[in-house]
């Protein structure tokens, strides 16, 4: 079998797992500046599945596709250091404010632009939203079958692929045909570390915008080694319809955000009487601790 063409969808996310006291601003909005930007954990599991397929099927190429601001190029470099072949940064102001539906639309247009592929692999969900929607929605937009909650790709033969899924209370083994979309859960193997050779090779990989800040001899370097250029894709490049992007393309709107106050523990003493117990229960209902 000739090699597979794999696209890995990866997102740069704020590390919401280690949120300190200063994560919230006084006005109740998230202080993104203090949260470290990381490779979404399950997207690393997805990358590993892609790299394993590349190990197994000679001639396979792995492309990392990231949608985000300019600094998300970091995710593509990280992918290259670990063994991906190339990457694209999907970036445009018009994407700002997109919900999962508008995001999936943009990503599906970018995948169409990148061209022929056999497998699209994404993490099941991103830790900044936990929605698990983008994978299935991209599949729907591209009219492809999907296999979600994948833990292991067991076998690839011809255009047939066998996948183990991890569900709440068990497993399921499914057989599917390529092309398809796979989303990978955190119970899948961790991603391999950076490879020293690849890290050397791609150390200076940069997007066009990043290159504009580069010095003269870097420009020469990029001309002689075109693989160091990370292509950027804009709305125009992927021929996306502006109406389906950003806030206008997003059916869901955020009406209101409340800050969950993580204050130092100070116990409230509640007396053994109906009034005080009722006041406590009302407060717990109001702050959504109980439904």
């Amino acid at each position, binding site marked *: 079998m000739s090699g597979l063409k794999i696209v890995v969808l990866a997102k740069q996310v704020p590390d919401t797992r280690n949120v300190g006291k200063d994560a919230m601003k006084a006005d109740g909005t998230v202080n993104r500046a203090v949260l470290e930007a990381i490779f979404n954990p399950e997207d690393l599991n997805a990358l590993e599945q892609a790299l394993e397929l590349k190990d197994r099927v000679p001639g396979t190429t792995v492309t990392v596709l990231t949608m985000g601001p300019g600094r998300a190029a970091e995710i593509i470099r990280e992918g290259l250091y670990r063994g991906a072949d190339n990457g694209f940064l999907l970036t445009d102001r018009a994407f700002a404010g997109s919900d999962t539906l508008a995001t999936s639309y943009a990503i599906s247009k970018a995948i169409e632009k990148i061209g022929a592929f056999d497998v699209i692999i994404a993490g099941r969900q991103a830790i900044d939203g936990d929605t698990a929607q983008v994978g*299935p929605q991209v599949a729907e937009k591209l009219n492809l079958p999907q296999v979600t909650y994948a833990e292991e790709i067991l076998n690839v033969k011809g255009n047939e692929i066998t996948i183990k899924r991890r569900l709440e209370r068990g497993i399921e083994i499914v057989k599917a045909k390529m092309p398809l979309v796979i989303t990978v859960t955190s119970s899948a193997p961790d991603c391999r570390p950076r490879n020293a050779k690849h890290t050397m090779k791609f150390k200076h990989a940069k997007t066009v915008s990043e290159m504009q800040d580069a010095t003269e001899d870097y420009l020469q370097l990029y001309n002689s080694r075109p693989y160091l250029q990370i292509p950027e894709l804009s709305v125009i490049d992927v021929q996306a319809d502006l109406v389906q992007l950003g806030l206008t393309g997003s059916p869901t709107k955020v009406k209101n955000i409340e800050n969950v106050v993580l204050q130092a523990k100070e116990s409230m003493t509640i007396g053994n009487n109906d009034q005080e117990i009722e006041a406590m229960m009302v407060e717990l209902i109001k702050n959504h601790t109980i439904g």
Partner: protein
Amino acid sequence: MNNLFVFCEIEDGQVADVSLELLTKGRSLATQLGCKLEAIAIGYKLNDIAQQIIPYGVDVLHIADDKRLVHYLTLPYAAIVNDLFAKEKPQIALMGATSVGRDLGPRVSSALKSGLTADCTSLMIGNHEDKKANKVYENLLYQIRPAFGGNIIATIINPDCRPQMATVREGVMKKEVFNVAYKGEIKNIDVKPILTDADFVVSIIERHIEKRKINIQGSPIVVAGGYGVGSKENFKLLYELADVLGGEVGASRAAVDEGYADHERQIGQTGITVRPKLYIACGISGQIQHRAGMDESAMIISINTDPHAPINAIADYAITGSVSEIIPKMIKAYKKNSK
């Protein structure tokens, strides 16, 4: 037309708890909106499924029964739901935030371009004023959920696109039969014109699903009892509170040693570790070995006759009193104030 729909998940002929919880919530939202509650059941050999579903106050139950639908598969299930929603134009559609609902929901919402909010912890009806467009939207579904690793609570709305879709996790909402003798209409879906061979490109070749076990670690609310509960009989109060709030029951080692609860419920160093949204410690002193299994709970309530019990030092609310007096008061207050 424009009713509220709940997708019912079925495993081994049994409707999943999360679906029954959504039917319960759906019933009260539908009443508030003055619309009908409709349910969708897809599977094989669903002869007695109506008896499980209609008593939750379901006005119309749509059933798609076919051998090929015995287990959940994305494409055929999505094709049936899309077809039904295109005809019926629901205003609201709810699904469980399970591996099924989170696979199906986004697929359907993408096809209908309707938007979807995952993992809601609360659903309410309310209005929305769009000041820029100078327009007031009435009776929208407020889809309330934590975001950013639980650091913020966001209220999401869906002003213009229908259905307003949301998924909700198991155990977040309560489950309550509306009327055992409720009269609902059954509509059988003819799947032949809907399904194509292409819908079956993904096939299941093996499946190992364990029978339901208690799932304390996955529960957002844990009501745990200790030696101070006093008897196995008194432990029933804890089950009652957990049931009302949509939680699970845990225990300290002393309570397990006394035979008040099974070992699989033991929380602590030699038991399981839990991190629920709410931990209610009933008659538990709070020794370090116990705290090791629960001190990362987002909120802790302690009920203890001893105002100086060590657990009170890490509790957000410390109630001084006996378990047998306090719990009934909490249940009463909850029932009075929850919608």
